């Protein structure tokens, strides 16, 4: 379990983004975004609504097509990939955790079926093994084994979000995109989820891009932080450095606007 130790020594970024631009007609979705993401690293992206965070994430995940720029994953050009290849990656190596679990779960399928789907999508054909893995993952996200045959519609919001995470991580992806994963959850549930995510990142060596407007979440979860405004990156650096010694006017405003508890 020396994942993190090894990880830092690797000399290749897992994801390399250069000059990524997406326009909606005359409006800018995101413009000229560049960054590297290294194995085992958690990158936070913050900014207010409409700052281009979600556009950026959906371009990276291939849900939208970028107008300009380059994205290379593990040395492969993502934007030039065939759809077959990209969809295969998104079932195996990549994961996408939606803000609303309903967008990322099959609500009519049992918890076990939800977790097992990605396994079956990559060819698992042994019911007992699929179910065993599903139970294992439900345990890891702290969902009781006796809920394995219940549908997510019978779960609380926090459980649904944890189920979504299990469903995404079961194929051991290397890159996880999360769009406001703790949004809409009670504070106590949020804390539990943050703890879970931190443990998973540490134990599995995941690379994570987490989009949020919650600075407390990124402080606890993200190694590095990128601040976006009007579709552009205005500042990036170590998370605590950006939050404690912000350089850009917008970041200073953002940090000083947070209510102190």
């Amino acid at each position: 379990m020396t994942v993190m130790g090894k990880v830092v020594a690797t000399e290749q970024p897992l994801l390399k983004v250069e000059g990524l631009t997406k326009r909606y007609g005359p409006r800018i979705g995101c413009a000229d975004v560049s960054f590297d993401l290294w194995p085992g690293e958690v990158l936070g992206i913050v900014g207010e609504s409409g700052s281009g965070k979600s556009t950026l994430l959906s371009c990276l995940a291939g849900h939208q097509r970028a107008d300009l720029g380059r994205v290379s994953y593990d040395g492969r050009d993502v934007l030039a990939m065939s759809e077959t290849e990209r969809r295969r990656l998104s079932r195996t190596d990549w994961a996408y955790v939606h803000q609303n679990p309903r967008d990322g779960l099959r609500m009519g399928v049992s918890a076990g079926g939800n977790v097992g789907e990605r396994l079956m999508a990559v060819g698992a054909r042994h019911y007992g093994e699929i179910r065993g893995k599903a139970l294992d993952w439900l345990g890891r996200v702290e969902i009781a084994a006796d809920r394995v045959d219940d549908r997510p519609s019978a779960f609380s919001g926090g459980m649904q979000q944890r189920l979504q995470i299990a469903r995404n991580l079961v194929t051991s992806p290397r890159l996880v995109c999360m769009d406001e994963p703790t949004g809409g959850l009670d504070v106590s549930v949020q804390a539990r989820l943050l703890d879970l995510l931190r443990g998973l990142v540490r134990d599995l060596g995941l690379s994570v891009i987490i989009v949020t407007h919650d600075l407390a979440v990124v402080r606890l979860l993200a190694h590095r932080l990128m601040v976006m405004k009007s579709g552009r990156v205005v500042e990036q650096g170590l998370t605590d450095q950006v939050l404690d010694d912000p350089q850009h006017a917008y970041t200073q405003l953002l940090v000083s606007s947070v209510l102190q508890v």
Partner: protein
Amino acid sequence: MIRIENLSKSFTLHNQGGAVIPVMTGVALTVSAGECVGLTGQSGAGKSTLMRMVYGNYLTAGGRLVVGDTDVASAEPRQIIALRRHTLGYVSQFLRVVPRVPTLDVVAEPLLALGTPATEARGRAASLLKRLNIPDRLWALSPTTFSGGEQQRVNIARGFAHAYPALLLDEPTASLDAANREVVLTLIEEAKARGAAILGIFHDEGARARVCDRLVDVTGFTPKAAA
């Protein structure tokens, strides 16, 4: 182990008309392995600012700041992450943790991040908590509900869990009773003995006299214009 040359720092306050406030200039100091250097100077003179710069928490305006083989002043974020994980520990005055995480895991976390097996990491955490007189009935609880002194001791245990070659200590003995103060000072002496380079802020003069080999007054680094 820690070498600082001609370091400077200023803050630009964009929300107050872009005022630039120079806070430090010409900082120079070194801390060798096995040595403890204490920072002195009045409150507001920049002791904590300097510590935060060494940790990479504050950006530097100029100069060199080398810890181990990493120039913190010019390093990429991920190099600083690696530095903090392996080489440079920091005991701040505030405990910042994910709520709900048990104290034992909070303390074990730096070791887990290095890939230490969980049982070994928790064992080390348990022995530190025991030394620092945190009753074991509290180990399974989150430290967020603890008293100030207890939180401070959890913070120290966390900072000493991994044998960092370099350590930054910001008021490690503040708000501790005599017995616990003694434990912390012993921990510092042990760290020095195993070769750790320590840079610290100690308001407690007795503690300073006991563990510090040298003192550096940061008032000398205050820019003239602002003085």
